[in-house]
Protein backbone atom coordinates (compact mmCIF):
# COMPACT_ATOMS: atom_id res chain seq x y z
CA UNK A 1 0.00 0.00 0.00
CA UNK A 2 1.33 3.42 -0.95
CA UNK A 3 -0.35 6.41 0.62
CA UNK A 4 0.27 9.93 -0.59
CA UNK A 5 -0.98 12.82 1.39
CA UNK A 6 -0.90 16.41 0.21
CA UNK A 7 2.31 15.68 -1.65
CA UNK A 8 3.77 18.83 -3.15
CA UNK A 9 7.03 19.56 -4.93
CA UNK A 10 8.15 22.94 -6.08
CA UNK A 11 11.15 23.60 -8.32
CA UNK A 12 11.88 27.28 -8.19
CA UNK A 13 8.50 28.83 -8.91
CA UNK A 14 7.26 25.87 -10.91
CA UNK A 15 4.88 23.61 -9.04
CA UNK A 16 5.74 20.14 -10.36
CA UNK A 17 3.44 18.26 -8.02
CA UNK A 18 0.55 20.02 -6.39
CA UNK A 19 -1.14 18.65 -3.29
CA UNK A 20 -1.47 15.08 -4.49
CA UNK A 21 -3.46 12.72 -2.29
CA UNK A 22 -4.27 9.14 -3.25
CA UNK A 23 -3.74 5.57 -2.13
CA UNK A 24 -2.42 2.70 -4.20
CA UNK A 25 -4.07 -0.48 -2.94
CA UNK A 26 -2.81 -4.04 -2.93
CA UNK A 27 -4.23 -6.77 -5.13
CA UNK A 28 -4.66 -4.70 -8.27
CA UNK A 29 -2.51 -3.20 -10.96
CA UNK A 30 -2.82 0.54 -10.63
CA UNK A 31 -1.96 2.54 -13.71
CA UNK A 32 -0.41 5.96 -13.29
CA UNK A 33 -1.12 8.18 -16.26
CA UNK A 34 -0.48 11.72 -17.26
CA UNK A 35 0.95 13.70 -20.16
CA UNK A 36 4.66 14.46 -20.31
CA UNK A 37 5.60 16.95 -17.63
CA UNK A 38 2.59 16.13 -15.49
CA UNK A 39 4.80 15.24 -12.53
CA UNK A 40 4.66 11.45 -12.71
CA UNK A 41 8.39 10.89 -12.41
CA UNK A 42 8.73 13.45 -9.65
CA UNK A 43 5.97 11.72 -7.72
CA UNK A 44 7.64 8.35 -8.12
CA UNK A 45 10.97 9.76 -7.02
CA UNK A 46 9.37 11.23 -3.92
CA UNK A 47 7.76 7.88 -3.13
CA UNK A 48 11.26 6.40 -3.16
CA UNK A 49 12.66 9.14 -0.97
CA UNK A 50 14.96 10.38 -3.73
CA UNK A 51 13.49 13.86 -3.86
CA UNK A 52 12.41 15.69 -0.76
CA UNK A 53 8.78 16.82 -0.92
CA UNK A 54 8.19 20.54 -0.43
CA UNK A 55 5.12 19.59 1.58
CA UNK A 56 3.06 16.51 2.36
CA UNK A 57 4.20 12.97 2.91
CA UNK A 58 4.37 9.50 1.42
CA UNK A 59 3.87 6.32 3.46
CA UNK A 60 4.91 2.87 2.34
CA UNK A 61 2.86 0.36 4.35
CA UNK A 62 2.39 3.08 6.90
CA UNK A 63 6.03 4.06 7.19
CA UNK A 64 8.22 6.72 5.68
CA UNK A 65 10.68 5.42 3.12
CA UNK A 66 13.68 6.47 5.16
CA UNK A 67 12.42 4.41 8.08
CA UNK A 68 12.24 1.18 6.12
CA UNK A 69 14.83 -1.39 7.04
CA UNK A 70 16.02 -3.17 3.90
CA UNK A 71 13.66 -1.16 1.67
CA UNK A 72 14.10 -3.46 -1.33
CA UNK A 73 12.16 -6.14 0.53
CA UNK A 74 9.22 -3.77 0.92
CA UNK A 75 9.17 -1.96 -2.39
CA UNK A 76 10.88 -2.78 -5.64
CA UNK A 77 11.11 -0.08 -8.25
CA UNK A 78 12.12 0.27 -11.86
CA UNK A 79 12.74 3.93 -12.52
CA UNK A 80 15.32 4.34 -15.24
CA UNK A 81 16.57 1.23 -16.96
CA UNK A 82 19.79 2.85 -18.11
CA UNK A 83 20.78 3.88 -14.58
CA UNK A 84 23.43 1.19 -14.36
CA UNK A 85 27.20 1.48 -14.32
CA UNK A 86 28.09 0.40 -17.82
CA UNK A 87 31.26 -1.34 -16.79
CA UNK A 88 29.58 -3.59 -14.27
CA UNK A 89 28.10 -6.94 -15.21
CA UNK A 90 24.39 -7.59 -14.79
CA UNK A 91 25.14 -10.13 -12.08
CA UNK A 92 27.34 -7.79 -10.08
CA UNK A 93 24.86 -4.95 -10.42
CA UNK A 94 22.15 -7.07 -8.85
CA UNK A 95 24.56 -8.56 -6.34
CA UNK A 96 25.54 -5.21 -4.87
CA UNK A 97 21.88 -4.25 -4.59
CA UNK A 98 21.05 -7.59 -2.96
CA UNK A 99 23.89 -7.31 -0.48
CA UNK A 100 22.90 -3.82 0.56
CA UNK A 101 19.58 -5.24 1.71
CA UNK A 102 20.80 -8.54 3.09
CA UNK A 103 19.28 -10.62 0.29
CA UNK A 104 21.15 -13.89 -0.37
CA UNK A 105 23.22 -14.03 -3.52
CA UNK A 106 21.29 -17.04 -4.84
CA UNK A 107 18.31 -14.80 -5.33
CA UNK A 108 20.34 -12.87 -7.91
CA UNK A 109 20.65 -15.91 -10.14
CA UNK A 110 16.98 -16.50 -9.71
CA UNK A 111 15.79 -13.08 -10.77
CA UNK A 112 18.22 -13.16 -13.67
CA UNK A 113 16.54 -16.35 -14.70
CA UNK A 114 13.07 -14.87 -14.28
CA UNK A 115 13.81 -12.02 -16.63
CA UNK A 116 15.72 -14.26 -18.99
CA UNK A 117 19.12 -12.61 -18.70
CA UNK A 118 21.05 -15.64 -17.41
CA UNK A 119 23.02 -16.07 -20.66
CA UNK A 120 24.35 -12.53 -20.44
CA UNK A 121 24.64 -12.29 -16.66
CA UNK A 122 28.41 -11.82 -16.76
CA UNK A 123 28.42 -9.34 -19.62
CA UNK A 124 28.93 -5.65 -19.10
CA UNK A 125 25.73 -3.65 -18.89
CA UNK A 126 27.25 -1.09 -21.27
CA UNK A 127 26.51 -3.32 -24.26
CA UNK A 128 22.91 -4.03 -23.29
CA UNK A 129 20.11 -2.88 -25.52
CA UNK A 130 17.32 -0.85 -23.97
CA UNK A 131 15.18 -3.97 -23.78
CA UNK A 132 17.86 -5.90 -21.93
CA UNK A 133 18.46 -2.99 -19.55
CA UNK A 134 14.75 -2.90 -18.93
CA UNK A 135 14.80 -6.57 -18.01
CA UNK A 136 17.72 -5.89 -15.70
CA UNK A 137 15.75 -3.12 -14.05
CA UNK A 138 12.77 -5.41 -13.58
CA UNK A 139 15.08 -8.02 -12.09
CA UNK A 140 16.28 -5.42 -9.59
CA UNK A 141 12.71 -4.59 -8.66
CA UNK A 142 11.88 -8.25 -8.06
CA UNK A 143 15.07 -8.86 -6.08
CA UNK A 144 13.66 -8.47 -2.61
CA UNK A 145 10.37 -10.23 -3.44
CA UNK A 146 8.64 -7.07 -2.24
CA UNK A 147 4.97 -6.56 -1.54
CA UNK A 148 4.94 -3.29 -3.44
CA UNK A 149 6.21 -2.90 -6.97
CA UNK A 150 6.58 0.29 -8.89
CA UNK A 151 7.40 0.41 -12.59
CA UNK A 152 8.02 3.51 -14.65
CA UNK A 153 7.39 2.75 -18.33
CA UNK A 154 8.21 -0.94 -17.98
CA UNK A 155 7.65 -1.89 -21.61
CA UNK A 156 10.01 0.73 -23.01
CA UNK A 157 12.34 -1.04 -25.39
CA UNK A 158 10.97 -4.50 -24.74
CA UNK A 159 10.15 -6.61 -27.73
CA UNK A 160 6.62 -7.99 -28.19
CA UNK A 161 7.50 -11.21 -26.38
CA UNK A 162 8.84 -9.15 -23.50
CA UNK A 163 5.78 -6.94 -23.53
CA UNK A 164 3.47 -9.92 -23.22
CA UNK A 165 5.64 -11.27 -20.45
CA UNK A 166 5.68 -8.07 -18.38
CA UNK A 167 1.95 -7.74 -18.91
CA UNK A 168 1.21 -11.13 -17.39
CA UNK A 169 3.92 -10.71 -14.77
CA UNK A 170 2.28 -7.58 -13.45
CA UNK A 171 -1.12 -9.22 -13.43
CA UNK A 172 0.13 -12.24 -11.56
CA UNK A 173 2.02 -10.08 -9.07
CA UNK A 174 -1.19 -8.25 -8.34
CA UNK A 175 -3.13 -11.50 -8.17
CA UNK A 176 -0.79 -12.63 -5.41
CA UNK A 177 -1.98 -9.68 -3.38
CA UNK A 178 0.87 -7.31 -4.07
CA UNK A 179 0.57 -3.63 -4.77
CA UNK A 180 1.57 -2.90 -8.36
CA UNK A 181 1.92 0.71 -9.45
CA UNK A 182 2.74 1.25 -13.12
CA UNK A 183 3.21 4.39 -15.11
CA UNK A 184 3.04 4.22 -18.87
CA UNK A 185 2.25 6.28 -21.92
CA UNK A 186 1.06 3.32 -23.91
CA UNK A 187 -2.66 3.33 -23.53
CA UNK A 188 -3.14 0.06 -25.39
CA UNK A 189 -0.83 -1.61 -22.87
CA UNK A 190 -2.49 0.03 -19.92
CA UNK A 191 -5.89 -1.04 -21.12
CA UNK A 192 -4.69 -4.63 -21.08
CA UNK A 193 -2.93 -4.49 -17.73
CA UNK A 194 -4.33 -2.02 -15.27
CA UNK A 195 -7.48 -2.44 -13.18
CA UNK A 196 -7.36 0.91 -11.52
CA UNK A 197 -6.15 4.28 -12.78
CA UNK A 198 -4.64 7.34 -11.20
CA UNK A 199 -4.43 10.19 -13.68
CA UNK A 200 -2.59 13.44 -13.04
CA UNK A 201 -2.12 16.53 -15.13
CA UNK A 202 0.06 19.52 -14.34
CA UNK A 203 0.80 18.04 -10.94
CA UNK A 204 -2.82 17.74 -9.86
CA UNK A 205 -4.99 14.68 -9.48
CA UNK A 206 -7.44 14.37 -12.37
CA UNK A 207 -8.90 10.95 -11.73
CA UNK A 208 -8.58 8.06 -9.28
CA UNK A 209 -11.01 5.33 -10.32
CA UNK A 210 -11.34 1.91 -11.89
CA UNK A 211 -10.50 1.41 -15.53
CA UNK A 212 -14.09 0.64 -16.49
CA UNK A 213 -15.40 3.74 -14.72
CA UNK A 214 -12.73 5.85 -16.29
CA UNK A 215 -13.55 4.80 -19.83
CA UNK A 216 -17.28 5.03 -19.17
CA UNK A 217 -16.97 8.51 -17.74
CA UNK A 218 -14.73 9.88 -20.41
CA UNK A 219 -16.26 8.40 -23.49
CA UNK A 220 -19.38 7.33 -25.19
CA UNK A 221 -20.37 3.81 -25.97
CA UNK A 222 -21.37 2.96 -29.52
CA UNK A 223 -22.97 -0.18 -30.91
CA UNK A 224 -22.46 -1.29 -34.48
CA UNK A 225 -25.16 -3.25 -36.21
CA UNK A 226 -25.04 -4.98 -39.58
CA UNK A 227 -28.17 -6.67 -40.83
CA UNK A 228 -29.75 -7.67 -44.14
CA UNK A 229 -33.07 -6.19 -42.89
CA UNK A 230 -31.92 -2.67 -42.42
CA UNK A 231 -35.22 -0.86 -42.76
CA UNK A 232 -36.98 -3.13 -40.29
CA UNK A 233 -34.22 -2.77 -37.81
CA UNK A 234 -34.42 1.01 -38.06
CA UNK A 235 -38.14 0.90 -37.44
CA UNK A 236 -37.72 -1.35 -34.44
CA UNK A 237 -35.07 0.87 -33.02
CA UNK A 238 -37.14 3.94 -33.65
CA UNK A 239 -40.19 2.59 -31.87
CA UNK A 240 -37.96 1.64 -28.94
CA UNK A 241 -36.82 5.24 -28.78
CA UNK A 242 -33.29 4.54 -29.93
CA UNK A 243 -31.73 6.73 -32.59
CA UNK A 244 -29.52 4.97 -35.04
CA UNK A 245 -27.19 6.57 -37.53
CA UNK A 246 -26.74 5.04 -40.95
CA UNK A 247 -23.17 4.62 -42.01
CA UNK A 248 -21.90 3.52 -45.39
CA UNK A 249 -21.82 -0.17 -46.21
CA UNK A 250 -25.18 -0.86 -44.66
CA UNK A 251 -23.85 -0.23 -41.22
CA UNK A 252 -25.94 1.17 -38.40
CA UNK A 253 -24.45 2.89 -35.41
CA UNK A 254 -26.24 3.48 -32.15
CA UNK A 255 -25.03 5.74 -29.39
CA UNK A 256 -26.08 5.52 -25.80
CA UNK A 257 -27.61 2.09 -25.80
CA UNK A 258 -26.25 -1.31 -24.88
CA UNK A 259 -25.67 -4.17 -27.29
CA UNK A 260 -27.66 -6.52 -25.03
CA UNK A 261 -30.78 -4.42 -25.38
CA UNK A 262 -30.50 -4.25 -29.15
CA UNK A 263 -29.86 -7.98 -29.35
CA UNK A 264 -33.03 -8.65 -27.38
CA UNK A 265 -34.99 -6.29 -29.61
CA UNK A 266 -33.74 -7.99 -32.75
CA UNK A 267 -34.57 -11.43 -31.40
CA UNK A 268 -38.00 -10.27 -30.38
CA UNK A 269 -38.70 -9.10 -33.91
CA UNK A 270 -36.85 -12.00 -35.52
CA UNK A 271 -34.39 -9.80 -37.31
CA UNK A 272 -31.25 -11.51 -38.57
CA UNK A 273 -28.03 -9.82 -37.46
CA UNK A 274 -24.76 -10.10 -39.28
CA UNK A 275 -22.90 -8.07 -36.76
CA UNK A 276 -23.66 -6.72 -33.34
CA UNK A 277 -20.64 -5.31 -31.61
CA UNK A 278 -20.17 -2.66 -29.00
CA UNK A 279 -17.44 -0.21 -29.81
CA UNK A 280 -16.09 0.98 -26.58
CA UNK A 281 -13.87 4.01 -26.77
CA UNK A 282 -10.33 3.03 -26.25
CA UNK A 283 -8.49 4.11 -23.15
CA UNK A 284 -6.45 6.32 -25.43
CA UNK A 285 -9.49 8.31 -26.50
CA UNK A 286 -10.76 8.55 -22.95
CA UNK A 287 -7.38 9.74 -21.77
CA UNK A 288 -7.12 12.34 -24.49
CA UNK A 289 -10.51 13.65 -23.55
CA UNK A 290 -9.58 14.04 -19.90
CA UNK A 291 -6.12 15.53 -20.27
CA UNK A 292 -6.73 17.80 -23.23
CA UNK A 293 -6.17 20.87 -21.10
CA UNK A 294 -2.96 19.79 -19.45
CA UNK A 295 -0.67 18.81 -22.28
CA UNK A 296 2.56 20.69 -22.09
CA UNK A 297 4.42 20.11 -25.33
CA UNK A 298 1.92 20.41 -28.08
CA UNK A 299 3.16 19.55 -31.48
CA UNK A 300 2.79 22.48 -33.75
CA UNK A 301 -0.28 22.08 -35.87
CA UNK A 302 -0.40 25.05 -38.18
CA UNK A 303 1.41 25.58 -41.43
CA UNK A 304 2.89 28.82 -40.18
CA UNK A 305 6.39 27.59 -40.66
CA UNK A 306 6.75 28.71 -44.23
CA UNK A 307 8.54 31.75 -43.06
CA UNK A 308 11.92 31.40 -44.58
CA UNK A 309 13.01 31.18 -48.13
CA UNK A 310 13.12 27.47 -47.63
CA UNK A 311 10.26 26.99 -49.98
CA UNK A 312 6.89 25.33 -49.66
CA UNK A 313 6.11 22.03 -48.03
CA UNK A 314 8.96 22.55 -45.66
CA UNK A 315 7.37 20.48 -43.09
CA UNK A 316 4.86 17.75 -42.92
CA UNK A 317 3.05 19.33 -40.03
CA UNK A 318 0.02 17.54 -38.86
CA UNK A 319 -3.33 19.19 -38.73
CA UNK A 320 -4.46 16.00 -37.03
CA UNK A 321 -2.97 16.46 -33.58
CA UNK A 322 -4.84 15.56 -30.44
CA UNK A 323 -7.50 18.20 -30.58
CA UNK A 324 -9.07 17.25 -33.86
CA UNK A 325 -8.91 13.57 -33.21
CA UNK A 326 -10.77 13.41 -29.98
CA UNK A 327 -13.69 15.38 -31.24
CA UNK A 328 -14.45 12.82 -33.88
Amino acid sequence: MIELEGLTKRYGDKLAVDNLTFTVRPGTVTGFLGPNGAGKSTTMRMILGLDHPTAGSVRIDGRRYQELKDPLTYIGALLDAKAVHGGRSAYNHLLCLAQSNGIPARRVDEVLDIVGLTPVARKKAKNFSLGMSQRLGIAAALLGDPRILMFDEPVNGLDPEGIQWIRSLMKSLAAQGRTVFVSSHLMSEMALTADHLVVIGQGRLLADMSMADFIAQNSQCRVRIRTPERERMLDVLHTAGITAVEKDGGLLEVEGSRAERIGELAAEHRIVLHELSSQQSSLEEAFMQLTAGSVEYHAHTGQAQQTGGTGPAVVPAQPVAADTKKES
Partner: protein
Amino acid sequence: MTTQIIRSEWTKIRSVASTVWTLSLALVVTVALGMLVSALTRHGFENMREQDRLSFDPTYISFAGMGLGQLAMIVFGVLVVTNEYSTGMIRTSLAAVPQRGVFLASKVAVATALALVVGMVTSFLAFFLGQALLGSLGTSLGEEGVLRAVIGGGLYMALIAMFSMGIAAMLRSPMLSLGILMPFFFLISGILGAVPATKKFGQFLPDQAGSRIMQVVIPAGDDTPYGPWGGLGIMALWVIAALAGGYLLLRKRDA
Protein backbone atom coordinates in the same frame (compact mmCIF):
# COMPACT_ATOMS: atom_id res chain seq x y z
CA MET B 1 22.67 -3.45 8.46
CA THR B 2 25.88 -1.54 8.01
CA THR B 3 27.83 -4.70 7.27
CA GLN B 4 25.51 -5.58 4.43
CA ILE B 5 25.87 -2.12 2.94
CA ILE B 6 29.63 -2.43 3.24
CA ARG B 7 29.50 -5.77 1.47
CA SER B 8 27.38 -4.20 -1.23
CA GLU B 9 29.85 -1.36 -1.68
CA TRP B 10 32.65 -3.88 -1.88
CA THR B 11 30.85 -5.64 -4.71
CA LYS B 12 30.38 -2.31 -6.45
CA ILE B 13 34.05 -1.42 -6.17
CA ARG B 14 35.46 -4.74 -7.23
CA SER B 15 33.14 -5.14 -10.18
CA VAL B 16 34.25 -2.17 -12.23
CA ALA B 17 37.36 -2.07 -14.33
CA SER B 18 38.36 1.45 -13.34
CA THR B 19 39.19 0.30 -9.79
CA VAL B 20 41.69 -2.25 -11.01
CA TRP B 21 43.14 0.16 -13.52
CA THR B 22 43.62 3.13 -11.27
CA LEU B 23 44.92 1.21 -8.27
CA SER B 24 47.34 -0.94 -10.22
CA LEU B 25 48.52 2.15 -12.04
CA ALA B 26 49.12 3.87 -8.71
CA LEU B 27 51.16 0.93 -7.50
CA VAL B 28 53.14 0.36 -10.66
CA VAL B 29 53.92 4.01 -11.31
CA THR B 30 54.98 4.72 -7.74
CA VAL B 31 57.13 1.63 -7.37
CA ALA B 32 58.65 1.75 -10.84
CA LEU B 33 59.54 5.40 -10.68
CA GLY B 34 60.95 4.94 -7.19
CA MET B 35 63.08 2.04 -8.38
CA LEU B 36 64.30 3.91 -11.39
CA VAL B 37 65.30 6.94 -9.41
CA SER B 38 66.91 4.80 -6.70
CA ALA B 39 68.98 2.93 -9.26
CA LEU B 40 70.05 6.12 -10.94
CA THR B 41 70.92 7.73 -7.64
CA ARG B 42 73.17 4.91 -6.57
CA HIS B 43 74.94 5.03 -9.86
CA GLY B 44 75.91 8.62 -9.49
CA PHE B 45 76.13 9.20 -5.77
CA GLU B 46 79.88 9.84 -5.84
CA ASN B 47 79.37 12.71 -8.19
CA MET B 48 76.90 14.43 -5.95
CA ARG B 49 77.72 17.63 -4.23
CA GLU B 50 78.79 17.43 -0.61
CA GLN B 51 75.80 19.43 0.51
CA ASP B 52 73.38 17.12 -1.25
CA ARG B 53 75.09 14.11 0.20
CA LEU B 54 74.63 15.40 3.72
CA SER B 55 70.89 15.82 3.34
CA PHE B 56 70.59 12.60 1.36
CA ASP B 57 67.37 10.84 2.37
CA PRO B 58 67.33 7.25 1.05
CA THR B 59 63.77 6.68 2.24
CA TYR B 60 62.42 9.72 0.49
CA ILE B 61 64.28 8.83 -2.69
CA SER B 62 62.48 5.49 -2.91
CA PHE B 63 59.18 7.39 -2.72
CA ALA B 64 60.07 9.43 -5.78
CA GLY B 65 57.16 8.01 -7.72
CA MET B 66 54.59 9.09 -5.16
CA GLY B 67 54.09 12.46 -6.83
CA LEU B 68 52.89 10.84 -10.02
CA GLY B 69 51.33 7.80 -8.39
CA GLN B 70 48.95 9.91 -6.37
CA LEU B 71 47.46 11.07 -9.66
CA ALA B 72 46.01 7.60 -10.12
CA MET B 73 44.82 7.60 -6.50
CA ILE B 74 42.95 10.85 -7.10
CA VAL B 75 41.30 9.40 -10.18
CA PHE B 76 40.35 6.33 -8.15
CA GLY B 77 38.76 8.39 -5.38
CA VAL B 78 36.90 10.62 -7.81
CA LEU B 79 35.58 7.79 -9.95
CA VAL B 80 34.36 5.73 -7.00
CA VAL B 81 31.95 8.50 -6.09
CA THR B 82 31.12 10.14 -9.41
CA ASN B 83 30.46 6.84 -11.20
CA GLU B 84 27.20 6.69 -9.31
CA TYR B 85 26.15 10.07 -10.57
CA SER B 86 27.31 9.88 -14.17
CA THR B 87 25.49 6.58 -14.70
CA GLY B 88 22.34 7.42 -12.74
CA MET B 89 23.07 4.46 -10.48
CA ILE B 90 22.81 6.84 -7.52
CA ARG B 91 19.02 6.69 -7.69
CA THR B 92 19.00 2.92 -7.56
CA SER B 93 21.51 2.98 -4.73
CA LEU B 94 19.64 5.52 -2.65
CA ALA B 95 16.38 3.67 -3.19
CA ALA B 96 18.09 0.58 -1.79
CA VAL B 97 19.78 2.46 1.04
CA PRO B 98 17.75 5.53 1.95
CA GLN B 99 20.02 6.41 4.88
CA ARG B 100 22.32 8.67 2.93
CA GLY B 101 24.85 9.17 5.71
CA VAL B 102 25.32 5.42 6.12
CA PHE B 103 25.52 5.07 2.36
CA LEU B 104 28.29 7.63 1.96
CA ALA B 105 30.15 6.39 5.03
CA SER B 106 30.12 2.80 3.78
CA LYS B 107 31.27 3.82 0.35
CA VAL B 108 34.11 5.93 1.71
CA ALA B 109 35.05 3.26 4.25
CA VAL B 110 35.31 0.51 1.65
CA ALA B 111 37.18 2.63 -0.86
CA THR B 112 39.52 3.94 1.83
CA ALA B 113 40.24 0.48 3.15
CA LEU B 114 41.11 -0.65 -0.34
CA ALA B 115 43.21 2.43 -1.00
CA LEU B 116 44.96 1.92 2.33
CA VAL B 117 45.84 -1.67 1.53
CA VAL B 118 47.11 -0.75 -1.91
CA GLY B 119 48.88 2.30 -0.48
CA MET B 120 50.65 0.23 2.19
CA VAL B 121 51.69 -2.43 -0.29
CA THR B 122 52.89 0.27 -2.65
CA SER B 123 54.76 2.06 0.08
CA PHE B 124 56.52 -1.02 1.41
CA LEU B 125 57.28 -2.34 -2.06
CA ALA B 126 58.65 1.00 -3.15
CA PHE B 127 60.75 1.17 -0.01
CA PHE B 128 62.23 -2.34 -0.14
CA LEU B 129 62.87 -2.36 -3.86
CA GLY B 130 64.24 1.14 -3.70
CA GLN B 131 66.59 0.27 -0.86
CA ALA B 132 67.71 -2.89 -2.65
CA LEU B 133 68.65 -0.83 -5.66
CA LEU B 134 70.32 1.81 -3.56
CA GLY B 135 72.55 -0.95 -2.18
CA SER B 136 75.07 0.40 0.31
CA LEU B 137 73.40 3.79 0.33
CA GLY B 138 70.14 2.31 1.51
CA THR B 139 68.67 2.31 4.93
CA SER B 140 66.51 -0.22 6.78
CA LEU B 141 63.24 -0.23 8.62
CA GLY B 142 65.11 -0.37 11.91
CA GLU B 143 66.57 3.10 11.49
CA GLU B 144 64.95 5.90 13.35
CA GLY B 145 61.90 7.36 11.62
CA VAL B 146 62.09 5.02 8.64
CA LEU B 147 59.23 2.74 9.63
CA ARG B 148 57.12 5.81 10.35
CA ALA B 149 57.89 7.21 6.90
CA VAL B 150 57.02 3.97 5.14
CA ILE B 151 53.73 3.50 7.00
CA GLY B 152 53.10 7.19 6.48
CA GLY B 153 53.48 6.70 2.73
CA GLY B 154 50.60 4.25 2.76
CA LEU B 155 48.49 6.52 4.94
CA TYR B 156 49.22 9.44 2.66
CA MET B 157 47.88 7.60 -0.38
CA ALA B 158 44.72 6.56 1.46
CA LEU B 159 44.13 10.12 2.65
CA ILE B 160 44.59 11.51 -0.84
CA ALA B 161 41.93 9.09 -2.09
CA MET B 162 39.60 10.09 0.76
CA PHE B 163 40.08 13.77 0.08
CA SER B 164 39.22 13.19 -3.59
CA MET B 165 36.10 11.29 -2.58
CA GLY B 166 34.93 14.17 -0.40
CA ILE B 167 35.48 16.70 -3.18
CA ALA B 168 33.81 14.41 -5.70
CA ALA B 169 30.77 13.93 -3.45
CA MET B 170 30.37 17.68 -3.40
CA LEU B 171 30.84 18.23 -7.13
CA ARG B 172 29.21 15.03 -8.50
CA SER B 173 30.81 15.42 -11.94
CA PRO B 174 33.98 13.46 -12.71
CA MET B 175 35.29 16.03 -15.14
CA LEU B 176 34.75 18.90 -12.79
CA SER B 177 36.30 17.05 -9.85
CA LEU B 178 39.38 15.98 -11.78
CA GLY B 179 39.58 19.39 -13.38
CA ILE B 180 39.85 20.96 -9.96
CA LEU B 181 41.89 18.35 -8.11
CA MET B 182 44.59 17.72 -10.69
CA PRO B 183 45.70 21.27 -11.32
CA PHE B 184 45.39 21.88 -7.61
CA PHE B 185 47.78 19.11 -6.61
CA PHE B 186 50.14 19.38 -9.51
CA LEU B 187 50.49 23.02 -10.21
CA ILE B 188 48.83 25.33 -7.77
CA SER B 189 49.99 23.57 -4.65
CA GLY B 190 53.50 23.26 -6.06
CA ILE B 191 53.70 26.88 -7.08
CA LEU B 192 52.25 28.17 -3.84
CA GLY B 193 54.71 26.03 -1.92
CA ALA B 194 57.68 27.16 -3.94
CA VAL B 195 57.11 30.89 -4.18
CA PRO B 196 58.50 32.44 -0.98
CA ALA B 197 55.61 34.87 -0.59
CA THR B 198 52.96 32.19 -0.51
CA LYS B 199 55.01 29.44 1.09
CA LYS B 200 53.60 30.11 4.56
CA PHE B 201 50.16 29.32 3.26
CA GLY B 202 51.22 26.68 0.77
CA GLN B 203 52.76 24.40 3.33
CA PHE B 204 49.39 23.95 4.98
CA LEU B 205 47.83 22.52 1.85
CA PRO B 206 46.89 18.84 2.19
CA ASP B 207 49.52 17.27 -0.02
CA GLN B 208 52.38 19.43 1.21
CA ALA B 209 51.52 18.88 4.84
CA GLY B 210 50.85 15.20 4.35
CA SER B 211 53.97 14.34 2.38
CA ARG B 212 56.10 15.58 5.27
CA ILE B 213 55.65 12.21 6.96
CA MET B 214 57.64 10.48 4.24
CA GLN B 215 60.78 12.49 4.94
CA VAL B 216 63.28 11.02 7.36
CA VAL B 217 66.11 13.47 6.94
CA ILE B 218 65.04 17.06 7.31
CA PRO B 219 66.94 19.29 4.87
CA ALA B 220 69.02 22.02 6.40
CA GLY B 221 67.31 25.36 6.81
CA ASP B 222 63.90 23.87 6.90
CA ASP B 223 61.47 25.92 8.98
CA THR B 224 58.24 24.00 8.63
CA PRO B 225 56.16 24.68 11.75
CA TYR B 226 54.84 21.11 12.10
CA GLY B 227 56.34 17.67 12.49
CA PRO B 228 55.64 14.52 10.45
CA TRP B 229 52.53 13.54 12.40
CA GLY B 230 51.41 17.11 12.72
CA GLY B 231 51.52 17.36 8.93
CA LEU B 232 49.47 14.25 8.56
CA GLY B 233 47.01 15.65 11.08
CA ILE B 234 46.63 18.80 9.00
CA MET B 235 45.94 16.65 5.96
CA ALA B 236 43.39 14.64 7.94
CA LEU B 237 41.59 17.87 8.83
CA TRP B 238 41.32 18.72 5.15
CA VAL B 239 39.93 15.25 4.50
CA ILE B 240 37.36 15.59 7.27
CA ALA B 241 36.28 18.97 5.93
CA ALA B 242 35.89 17.62 2.40
CA LEU B 243 33.90 14.60 3.52
CA ALA B 244 31.68 16.65 5.81
CA GLY B 245 30.92 18.98 2.91
CA GLY B 246 30.14 16.01 0.71
CA TYR B 247 27.81 14.52 3.30
CA LEU B 248 25.92 17.76 3.95
CA LEU B 249 25.32 18.32 0.26
CA LEU B 250 24.26 14.71 -0.32
CA ARG B 251 21.75 14.93 2.50
CA LYS B 252 20.29 18.17 1.29
CA ARG B 253 20.10 17.54 -2.41
CA ASP B 254 17.50 15.67 -4.44
CA ALA B 255 19.11 12.58 -5.87
